[in-house]
């Protein structure tokens, strides 16, 4: 397998996601189920393929990591849409998000990170993988928040979506902290300190603190459900932007 094969897989996934977006727009909900499974297989192949080509799981190149995030979000979508008893409860809006993410890859260098001698250490790979997973969870939380704004009519479903977003924001923070724990251990063994004054440290702190913002919104600022949802959404958008920024 070569990097060229990964590029082919990328376009197949992009096509399947785009088809799903069309199905959502044309309200062909039954067909989404089948293409979702195909998109999951394709995104999963990109994940496995990245490992086969580079010899390690995705680390920091945007080509592999964003597809990794897309894979996580699609799986979560499959799980939660499967549970949904009717189309109102489903979160088909996620296909717009994954399409945007997958398209973002086009702006990046389409090549997986090369080998590095430290990549055989589990804590090094965990540092990267847990951060990617946490971003996947944050994106899923964003999707639920947007779905809750769209789903104004049914308060019960709206509450369910907001609560799910809250759960995935906290879960994302936990996974992010676990990744930072691994990173701290790596830093400790390489640089002699668990943390270092650096851009990486500042960015990581910003991302974690942003994830904490939505649970510390003061009542006078977020006195309605909609305001709270929008502020939480802004914080999550900023986490994603910080992650996607080149650094």
């Amino acid at each position, binding site marked *: 397998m070569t990097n060229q094969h990964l590029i082919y897989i990328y376009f197949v996934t992009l096509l399947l996601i785009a088809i799903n977006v069309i199905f959502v727009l044309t309200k062909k909900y039954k067909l989404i189920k089948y293409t979702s499974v195909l998109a999951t297989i394709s995104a999963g192949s990109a994940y496995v393929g990245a490992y086969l080509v580079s010899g390690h799981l995705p680390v920091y190149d945007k080509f592999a990591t964003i597809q990794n995030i897309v894979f996580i979000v699609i799986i979560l979508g499959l799980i939660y849409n499967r549970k949904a008893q009717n189309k109102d409860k489903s979160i088909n809006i996620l296909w717009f998000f994954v399409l945007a993410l997958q398209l973002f890859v086009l702006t990046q260098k389409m090549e997986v990170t*090369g080998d*590095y001698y430290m990549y055989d250490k589990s804590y090094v790979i965990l540092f990267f993988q847990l951060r990617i997973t946490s971003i996947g969870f944050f994106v899923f939380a964003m999707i639920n928040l947007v779905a809750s704004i769209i789903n104004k009519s049914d308060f019960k479903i709206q509450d369910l979506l907001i609560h799910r977003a809250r759960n995935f924001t906290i879960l994302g923070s*936990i996974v992010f902290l676990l990744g930072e724990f691994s990173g701290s251990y790596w830093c*400790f063994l390489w*640089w*002699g300190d*668990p943390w270092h004054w*650096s851009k990486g440290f*500042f960015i990581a702190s910003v991302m974690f603190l942003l994830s904490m*913002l939505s649970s510390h919104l003061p009542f006078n600022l977020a006195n309605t459900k909609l305001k709270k949802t929008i502020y939480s959404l802004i914080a999550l958008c900023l986490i994603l932007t910080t992650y996607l920024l080149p650094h």
Partner: protein
Amino acid sequence: MIKLLSSMRFAFWLLLSIIIWLFIGAMLTIHDNFYYAIKEMGNELILDWILEKSSNSPTVLIWFIGLCLIGFLLAVSFIFCTWYNLLKVARKQASLKSILLFIIHILFVIIMALHLGSMLLGYKYSDVELAVGQEFKFDEGYSIKLNKVHYIDDINVLKMKYKEMRKYHTRNGFHYKDNYAQLTLKQNDKEIKSEKTSMLSPFKYGCLRATISYFYLPKGSESDTPGIKLVIAKNYFNELFFIFYALEIISILIFLLITWKKK
């Protein structure tokens, strides 16, 4: 006053301020001068940096003072909020959820205090270059000597610049477990410990650690034997930092699990 210091509003604005301030810090690193100044901050204890080198970069010093100020206010907010709000709720409700919220905040304060402790106490020397046979003397009468280097990979790679070198530092190109240095630690000329040390496997003696960050070729040396770049640090809080960090993660995880289902 207590009401303000323990309020969510105060905590929120401080959180937002520290996020913006850290983001400014990240932006500063884009500029080369600031990048090196910020890197220098981590090369030694922050107190030493303030006293000896901070005057070289007033912008970074101002940024750092601002960070300390916001950090201090945030710590005050945390302590007041934990003491006056969360403890009260935990006592009143005595539920696992409220107790966990209290614990999570307490642990966060402890972690911040450990960060502060590690910035102020002990000592740290970075980029200590040692060629074979050389010795580095430091605090408490300690000295560390490089007796021998065993290096099996291509020595020419070490002549390259960092970015170029990285391409060759693959799992097949650089065998970090097989490349090692024989280090000897002495205190007042009395040998205490001698052992083989490789990258990612530091030399340890109590709270003292000597970590190999790189192998390098000493300038002007005709020999093909590399030297090592060491970070020598005495830090009392590292182990505690990891323990409390793990406890914090576990506490948040339990909190999430018990509140996962919406009542």
